[in-house]
């Protein structure tokens, strides 16, 4: 964005920056109110947040990209309130980011090192992309393997935000058979607080929301068992989906272009993973709140869940077997029949023996032999 | 009058009153009483023979004859003792003449004959039809009175 600013690795307070850019207090309060709503905080917190952020020094942020597709970065640049996006970038000092920084080569790496030195123990590390644990050459930057760079950069970080499903859970690089031995940030870094913001990509406002929370409180938000902020990942897509009533009524689209699909009925039968996907798509939506995949007519693929790529076919309903087939059952029936023939043969010989051993019952033999 | 066959016997019985049928029926039973060791039967027959019997006495006699009859049934599958079976038919005869059937005397006579038949099966000596002749005589004598 602004090379000058990015080179300046000892930032002033956020309030100064805002005033410098002509942002009014009213505008900033509005932003804070929106943020408190999204983070599920009480409205009274908006003022507190505004105060806190204004007084805070601009946070130094280092953004590392490993095995990724840049989709996460693409996503964060498309927030539905551009002025607020700018605001976000004014709140922080983005000291290193491959795609966004102007510097390149040694200068770029120098910026990272400088930021790490100047803000040791205080900078925020954002990671997108997974880390290959196979051959180091699968992915390296300036001759430094992703693993080494992550370990080195994480050392002085105050906290780490893993954005995107690759950084949080390994993502598509980790998909079976995982040729690069891809792992997530949390698989490697064990001694730092890590906030997972999964999604392929994550929703832009969710990413900015997490940053805002960190700026406001200097701490990480409440997380679920998978390290995700509960405020955004507390509910399934299915539970918040506007098509949910159709599910409950048993009204489903059978194909993508049938009458039911046009009527906007539930996409469960077309493989929608909404019921097992925890994300804010259905409430926050994408592209300035325009829509989200289901609203566009395609089922949720569960991209914010670990190993979603290997969780069964995308277009098979969740209640369908992943791999069981009729022919498999046919084979099982054949095996059962084979065993059945063997058992029948055995049973029949038991019965035949009993018949052969049958001594004609006579009246004398009705009396029991005493032992 | 003399009675020589069953149709005359039957016709003669039909002319009797209810009480008469009872009394003569009891005599038929009495004639084979030796085959029965049950005191209740003996008493029931003695009661049935009386002319001055009250309703209560009749009911009591019927009851004890019935008891004697049921007690002496040979159950299905049990070995039959024809001697005791003869006793059972005596009880049946006593019961028949006390019951309010259409032809109590005839029924009693048949049961009495079965008692004799049973006796003959038990001993293997053929005395069965002799009882009929005895009954003709009993009836003829009864009708004289």
């Amino acid at each position, binding site marked *: 964005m602004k090379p000058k600013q990015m080179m300046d690795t000892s930032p002033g307070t956020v309030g100064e920056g805002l005033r410098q850019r002509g942002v009014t207090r009213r505008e900033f309060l509005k932003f804070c109110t929106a943020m408190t709503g999204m983070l599920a905080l009480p409205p009274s917190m908006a003022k507190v947040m505004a105060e806190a952020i204004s007084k805070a020094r601009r946070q130094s942020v280092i953004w590392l990209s490993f095995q990724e597709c840049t989709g996460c970065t693409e996503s964060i640049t498309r927030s539905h309130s551009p002025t607020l996006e700018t605001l976000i970038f004014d709140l922080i000092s983005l000291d290193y980011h491959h795609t966004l920084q102007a510097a390149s080569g040694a200068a770029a790496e120098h910026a990272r090192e400088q930021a790490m030195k100047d803000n040791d123990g205080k900078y925020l590390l954002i990671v997108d992309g997974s880390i290959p644990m196979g051959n180091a050459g699968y992915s390296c930057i300036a001759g430094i393997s992703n693993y080494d760079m992550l370990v080195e950069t994480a050392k002085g970080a105050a906290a780490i935000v893993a954005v995107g499903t690759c950084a949080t859970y390994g993502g598509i690089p980790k998909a079976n058979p995982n040729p690069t031995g891809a792992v997530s940030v949390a698989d490697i870094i064990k001694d730092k607080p890590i906030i997972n913001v999964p999604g392929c990509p994550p929703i832009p406002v969710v990413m900015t929301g997490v940053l805002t929370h960190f700026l406001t409180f200097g701490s990480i938000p409440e997380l679920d068992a998978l390290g995700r902020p509960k405020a955004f990942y507390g509910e399934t897509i299915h539970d918040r989906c506007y098509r949910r009533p159709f599910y409950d009524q048993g009204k489903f689209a059978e194909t993508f272009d049938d009458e039911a699909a046009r009527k906007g009925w539930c996409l469960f039968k077309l493989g929608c993973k909404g019921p097992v996907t925890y994300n804010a798509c259905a409430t926050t939506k994408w592209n300035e709140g325009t829509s989200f995949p289901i609203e566009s007519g395609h089922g949720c693929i569960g991209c914010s869940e670990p190993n979603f790529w290997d969780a069964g076919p995308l277009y098979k309903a969740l209640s369908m077997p992943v791999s069981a087939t009729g022919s498999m059952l046919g084979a099982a029936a054949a095996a059962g029949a084979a*065993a059945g023939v063997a058992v029948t043969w055995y049973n029949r010989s*038991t019965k035949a023996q009993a018949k052969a051993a049958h001594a004609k019952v006579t*009246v004398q033999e*009705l*009396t*029991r032999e*005493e032992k | 009058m003399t009675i020589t066959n069953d149709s005359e016997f039957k016709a003669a019985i039909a002319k009797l009153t209810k009480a008469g049928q009872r009394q003569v029926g009891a005599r038929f039973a009495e004639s084979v009483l030796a085959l029965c060791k049950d005191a209740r039967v003996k008493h029931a027959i003695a009661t049935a023979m009386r002319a001055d019997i009250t309703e209560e006495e009749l009911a009591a006699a019927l009851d004890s004859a019935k008891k004697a009859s049921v007690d002496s049934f*040979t159950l*299905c599958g049990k070995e*039959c003792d024809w001697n005791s079976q003869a006793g059972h038919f005596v009880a049946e005869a006593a019961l028949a003449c006390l019951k309010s059937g259409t032809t109590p005397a005839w029924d009693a006579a048949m049961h009495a004959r079965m008692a004799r038949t049973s006796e003959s099966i038990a001993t293997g000596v053929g005395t069965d039809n002799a009882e009929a002749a005895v009954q003709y005589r009993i009836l003829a004598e009864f009708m004289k009175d």
Partner: protein
Amino acid sequence: MSATLEKGLNAFKEVIDTPIASYFSSCVHCGLCAEACLFYNETGDPKYTPIHKLEPLRRVWKQEYTLLGKLGKMLGLSKPVTDEELTEWEPLVYDSCSMCGRCSLVCPVGNDITYMIRKMREGMSASGHAPEDMKGATKRAIEIGSPMGIKWPAVQAQIKHVQAETDIEVPVDKQGADYLVLMSSMEIINFPEYLSAISRIFKQAGVSWTLAPDAFEATNSGIQIGASDLAREIVSRIVVAAERLKVKCVISPECGHAFTAIRWEGPNLMGKPFGFEVKHILEVLDELHAAGKLKTRGKDKRPLTYHDPCQIARRGGVVEQPRRLLGEVAEDFREMPDAGVMNWCCGGGGGVSANSRAEPLRLEVFKVKKRQIESTGVHTLITACANCRIVMEEGLEHYHMKVEVLGLTELLAEYLVEGE
């Protein structure tokens, strides 16, 4: 293992077939069969639950004829069936089951429990676990020709008596007669009225019939004790006589299990379908009635009810016939509750009445019949099984009930139009 136990277990293995395997597989232990059983209902003792009576047979099935059961047996996880156990089960299989088949008609999964009891008795008798009285009856049936020890001369004596009484000749050994009439020992001993009634009805209807000196006995103790080898010997006497006399039809008398023995088990015991028909006397009478050959005059004014003998109705399919016949001669016919195929057993079927050890229990369970009769308010009870008749006479006497019991054939004969 004693030789007799081995024989018993061998018999269990022999009799277990597809229906039994299916029945045991289907049982869900719902206990409804107990509710259908008069022995459970009148005593409240759960050990009388019908399916429970089959427990040893079930275990043999499981251990011998199921894969898991065989594995369990190999690993010593299952309890083998012992002589002691069969001794314990003997009263359950014989004293407290009259094979009335009510449970079989109630079982929600469709288990024919009675069928299994019949099969189980094969192993019980082969292992010497049949009641002494039933052994005695079977011995007499085989050695003397009748479970009650009756020989042909006794029948001849009765024939003489009946001929004297009715003045109708009783045909004996008549070649080519249409019907071979059988009798149960009970009728020979206790109810000469039956033969007399048959003589009169058949004379009036112009039926050609005969008795056979070598096959007068219809009952079959082999069926009751559960020894097919013996049952076959007994039923073969009838088959031989029927074939010798070339009759068209054999008439089973007013006796429950005799009908089952000849009509349903007979051909299977002999291993061939019969060349003649087998009918229950009520079926024959109903046919004569339908053909206008059985004419009656007048109606019995006493209120009557009819007791369906289990083997005739539920296990024999003769349900409508007695009602049609009674309709002709009864002015006030009243059905008992549960009449017809769901009727309650008298308590003495399946050999129970022949088993003196079972007598107290039999009288105890008669309470259900008592209630049934009392609810109709009648004092005259008609039936079509000599065994039911005597068992009920006993029960009625035991509970001081003034009810007279009559055979249906005998009742019909009372109203017969003769000599026209």
